C-alpha cells in the first residue's frame, strides 16, 4: 500500500507555484496555491505532455503541448483535447516537510 513520502520542504515551492518530483519511479507535479497543496501526475492524458511545464490559471494547469486543462484540486480534465482525468495524489504538510501519497491508479 502507498504511504506518505517526503518530497520537499515548504519553502522549496513559492505560493503560487509548482515543482516536479520523482516519487517511486513516477513523476508528479506538486502545486502550492493560496495556501493549498495538491499533486497530479506529470502527464497529460491526451498526449503524455509534461504538465509541470505548463502555466497555471486559477486552479487549472494548462498542458504546454495542446492546451488541455486539468483541475489542480481533483485531476479532472476540464477542456479538450483531454477527456480523462490525470491521477490526483494526496499531499500533507508536517512541520516544514511536504509529503505525498501516490494514488493507486
Amino acid at each position, binding site marked *: 500500500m502507498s504511504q506518505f513520502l517526503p518530497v520537499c520542504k515548504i519553502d522549496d515551492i513559492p505560493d503560487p507555484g509548482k515543482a516536479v518530483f*520523482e516519487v517511486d*519511479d513516477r*513523476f508528479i507535479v506538486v502545486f502550492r496555491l493560496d495556501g493549498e497543496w495538491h499533486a497530479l501526475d506529470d502527464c497529460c492524458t491526451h*498526449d*503524455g505532455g*509534461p504538465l509541470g511545464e505548463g502555466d497555471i490559471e486559477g486552479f487549472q494547469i494548462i498542458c504546454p*503541448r495542446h492546451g488541455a486543462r486539468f483541475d489542480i484540486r481533483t485531476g479532472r480534465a476540464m477542456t479538450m483535447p483531454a477527456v480523462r482525468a490525470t491521477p490526483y495524489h494526496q499531499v500533507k504538510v508536517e512541520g516544514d516537510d511536504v509529503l505525498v501519497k501516490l494514488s493507486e*491508479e
Partner: protein
Amino acid sequence: MSTTTEAGFTQEAFEAFLAERREPDWLRRRRLEAWRRFEELPIPRGGEEWRRTDLRAFRLQRFGLPLLPPAEAATPEGLLAEGVPLAGRAVSFDSLSLHEELDPHFARRGVLFGSLDDLVFEHGDLLRPHLLARAVDPHYDKFAALHAACWQGGTLVYVPRGVAVGRPLYTLSTLSSGGVDLGHTLIVLEEDAEATVVGETASSDSEGGGLHCGAIEILLAPGARLRYVNLQNWGNGVWHFAHQKARLDRDASLQWTIGALGGRLAKVNQHVALVGEGAHAQVNGVMFTEGRQHLAYHTLQHHETPRGTSDLLYKGALQDRSHLVWRGMIKVDPDAQKTDAYQRNDNLMLSEQARADSIPGLEIEADDVRCSHGATAGRVDEEQIFYAQSRGLTRKEAVRMIVSGFFQQVFDRIAIDSVREVLGRAIGRRVREYQET
C-alpha cells in the same frame, strides 16, 4: 551473481576497456570517434521521436561497462530453441560469450557463427566493410554512439555465397539483475545464401533491472534469403535501447519477426532499407505489455530502388497501465517506381488505463506505387466473452482465447512452429482477468 562493472560510462573506464581488447586499428578508431560523439550528445528528450518516451527516470551513470567475465554464471533458460534441431547455438551473459557451437558441416562450408568479439579479430578484413558502416548509423543518437563505442560480445552470422543453412542458428543473450548488455548482432548473407536465425533475450530475474544498449545489422546480398526471429524477453525493470537495420540488395528476401514482452522501457528503431531492385521484406511484430511497461517502436520501410515490396504487421495487446508506441513510416524514393508497401498496427486494449499510440506515415516521392497503411485500437468484445462463457469457458479462458485469436493473424505468418507456440504460451500466461469498467 553478476559481472563486475565500472561505475558509469567514464573516460577512464572506456580507456581501460579499449586497452584490454585486441582489436584491429580501424575498429579502435571507430570506437574512439563514436565515444567522442557519445560524450557530445545529451540524453534525448522531446522532438517527434522522443515526445512519447520519457527518459527522466533513466540514470545512465548507474550502469557501466561489464569488465570481468562471469565466474559461474547461472544463466536463465531460453524458450525458443526447445526441441528444435539447430545448426548452431551461442549464449552470452552480460555481453560476454559463455558458449558457442556450430555444426562442423556448415563451418567447413565457410559459415561463421559465434561471438563477434572473437570473430572480428580473426576475420577483421572480411567484417570491416560491414560492421557499423553500412546499416546502423553510429552517430544517430547518444545510445547509438554509446553502443558503437562500447559494444562487446554479440553475435556474428556470416553465410558465404550460395550456401544454405537448413537449420536455425540460435542465440540467447542473458542479463544479470542490474547488469549491462551491449551486444551487437551482425548478420551477413552473401549472394544467394540462405539462413534462419532465432535470437532471444532473458534476465536472471524476471522483475530485475538492467540496461541493454544494442544494435542489429542485417546485410543481404543479391538473392539472399533470411528468416530472422528476435524475441525481447528481458526482466520488467530493464531499459532497452536498440537500433536495428536491414539492407536488402537485389531480389533479396527477409522475413523479420520481433516479439516484445519484457523491459521497463524500450525504444527501438527498426529500419528496413530495400536498396536493390525487386527486394522483399516482411516485418512482423508481436507485443504484450503489462504493469507500467513502456515500449516504443519506430519503424521505417525505405524503398530506394524499383519493384521492392514490403509488408509490416505489428500487433500489440496492452494490460494494466502499460503504454505502447508505434510510429511507422514508408518512405519511397523518386526512383523506386512499382513499389508495393503496406504497414499495419493493431492494438487490443485489455485495461482502461493502458495507452496505445499508433502513428503511421507515408513519404512518397515516386508516382507509380502502391502504398497503404492502417491502424486500429479496440477492446475485447463483451459479447464474444459472453458467448464463450455460455459454451462453458470461464471469463479468463474466454479472454485468453480472444487474445490468442487476435494474434493469430501474425502467428500465421511465422513459419517456425516453436516460435509460434512459445509466443502464444508466454502471452497466454500473462493475460489476467479482464474487467470492462
